[in-house]
């Protein structure tokens, strides 16, 4: 009797201890998560705060937290950003549309109806990302020069398309693989050809995936600096170039740079926030099962 009681009490104590351990673990991880999140967010916050400071207050050490906010730096930014933001929007939107137009058929040919040697094709696409872009900048420059595309927005569209296409193909392909084969068979029985199969059956299902793919392409193209810096001067200079141009040879510039950087970040944040819902929605495949 007493032995039975002891045995019965044993697991109870263990489970109590386990619960305490689980709880402390939860709290511990919570603290870690907050520390990491703040560590990531602090520089961004600093940037935004600095953007509202007058130039003289921005450079002080220790940093001032009490100051009279001003919009003068933003005014300065908006007076000069016109051509840069136009170029950025054209290069970003143009390349992203091209990436989707090329990536959807390519992903289809590598997933739903795989072509012969599709593995090689898939590897080829990702292998283009293995070479550091610095190694290719010389030839790229010469080619751009000879084709009269140097400092042209078309050059950036082509290069950003090439830059994002491999990743996009891999992403879209993985979404397409999620489409149940019975749906495609049903479409074939219903008389849908290849085009109809893609437009009426596959694309509606993978559309949340396409949104996230487009989002990644937009972010990469918007933030790209290296190619823009080396292959454009004025006719195609993008927002990252504008940030660089905000740094003068002499004098104070921290508040101005912060304002420019804040402005440059806003579009990506907005696009990301809009796409977030689509990402969270995920692949709506609930109707199949």
């Amino acid at each position, binding site marked *: 009797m007493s032995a039975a009681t002891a045995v019965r009490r044993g697991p109870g104590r263990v489970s109590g201890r386990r619960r305490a351990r689980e709880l402390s673990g939860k709290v511990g991880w919570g603290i870690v998560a907050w520390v990491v999140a703040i560590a990531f967010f602090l520089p961004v916050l600093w940037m935004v705060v600095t953007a509202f400071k007058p130039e003289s207050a921005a450079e002080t050490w220790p940093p001032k937290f009490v100051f009279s906010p001003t919009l003068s730096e933003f005014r300065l930014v908006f007076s000069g950003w016109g051509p840069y933001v136009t170029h950025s929007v054209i290069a970003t939107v143009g390349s992203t549309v091209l990436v989707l137009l090329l990536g959807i058929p390519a992903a289809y040919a590598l997933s739903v109806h795989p072509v012969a040697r599709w593995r090689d094709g898939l590897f080829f696409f990702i292998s283009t990302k293995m070479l550091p872009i610095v190694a290719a900048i010389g030839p790229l420059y010469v080619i751009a020069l000879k084709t009269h595309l140097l400092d042209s927005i078309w050059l950036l569209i082509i290069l950003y398309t090439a830059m994002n296409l491999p990743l996009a193909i891999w992403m879209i392909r993985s979404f397409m693989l999620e489409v*149940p084969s*019975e*749906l495609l*068979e*049903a*479409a*074939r*029985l*219903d*008389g*849908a050809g290849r085009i*109809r199969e893609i437009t*009426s*059956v596959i694309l*509606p*299902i993978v559309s949340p995936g396409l949104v996230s793919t487009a989002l990644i392409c937009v972010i990469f193209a918007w933030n790209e600096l290296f190619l823009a810096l080396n292959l454009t001067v004025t006719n195609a200079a993008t927002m990252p170039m504008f940030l660089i141009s905000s740094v003068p040879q002499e004098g104070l510039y921290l508040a101005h740079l912060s304002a420019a950087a804040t402005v440059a970040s806003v579009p990506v944040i907005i696009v990301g926030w809009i796409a977030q819902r689509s990402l969270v929605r995920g692949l*709506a*495949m*609930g*109707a*199949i*099962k």
Partner: protein
Amino acid sequence: MAEVRYAAASRVYAKDAPPAVDALDLDIADGEFMVLVGPSGSGKTTALRMLAGLEPLDGGRVEIGGRDVTFVPPKDRDIAMVFQNYALYPQKSVAENMGFALKMQGVPRDERLRRVREAARLLDLDENLLDRKPKQLSGGQRQRVAMGRAIVREPKVFLMDEPLSNLDAKLRVQTRSQIAELQRRLGITTVYVTHDQVEAMTMGNRVAVLSSGLLQQVATPRELYDNPVNQFVAGFIGSPAMNLRTVPLADGGVRLAGRVFPLPAAIRAAAKDARLSELVVGIRPEHMHLATGAGDLAEPAGPPADGSVEVTGEVLLVEELGADALLHVRLPEGGDQVVARTEGRKPPAPGRQVTFWVRPDDAFAFNPGTGARLAG
């Protein structure tokens, strides 16, 4: 209106593997409800997909309405298929799902809508469901939409791949009869795949039993039950399954449970011709008749006048089904277990000795080597 014909149709997935469907010969009459039944891996679904055009043939041919469609793409075969998971387009409304094939055929919008409504009425599908998306429907409703998508096309042949397996048991029984009734009304040739032999027996005009890619027998449900051509069919058709025992031959019959179980002379002659020393005896659970008064087992009644043979054993387990009860009985010699179906009221308790009467005519005999039926 079309008949369907498989002529030596084969499908081989891997070079060294045995064919998934091996030289299937099957004629399906116009308007017939043909059920393909078999355990998983028997090739029944592959056979259906070959007819649909979703699976290429590695030999032989397939005909629909007298036309060789072996190399015809699925959309030109004039067939409609209901998939196991329904395969409804998740982003399209119910009406769009049902009308998609018509849209692909270029049927005008009004005509499309009219035919979708008509199909919905035929299936008792509420008209205000037509605007919903598939995921807003219950499982039973989705099943009916999938049926509707097939009906709307008015195809030559319906193909159904286990369309009821995702429904709960009660709905399955209900839908089973609805589909059979609907098929009779529309008179469209139907090929129906299932692993459930009850579905096969209740729905099909004829049933084709497959195993390991080979067609075992094609017959009416009654014929399959009464005259299975081999041990596989005998064991597959009927629930609970037939009791099958390998037993040694004896003078005038076989040795079963410590005594001689007489077999008809024709079977004995066939066994002798095949030089068998033992054979497989099959007795259906419902052909094991519990001796009357077995509830209290005071005194087993005398043998019935039809030459029945006495079989005794010990009850190990009783499964009560309500109307019936299944007795798991251990026969005395060798400890073999058999299942008997008895009346549900007052079944004997586990541990009791019971006596059954079995008519020798009800017993089946099979060649243990080939599984072929020894004609009685």
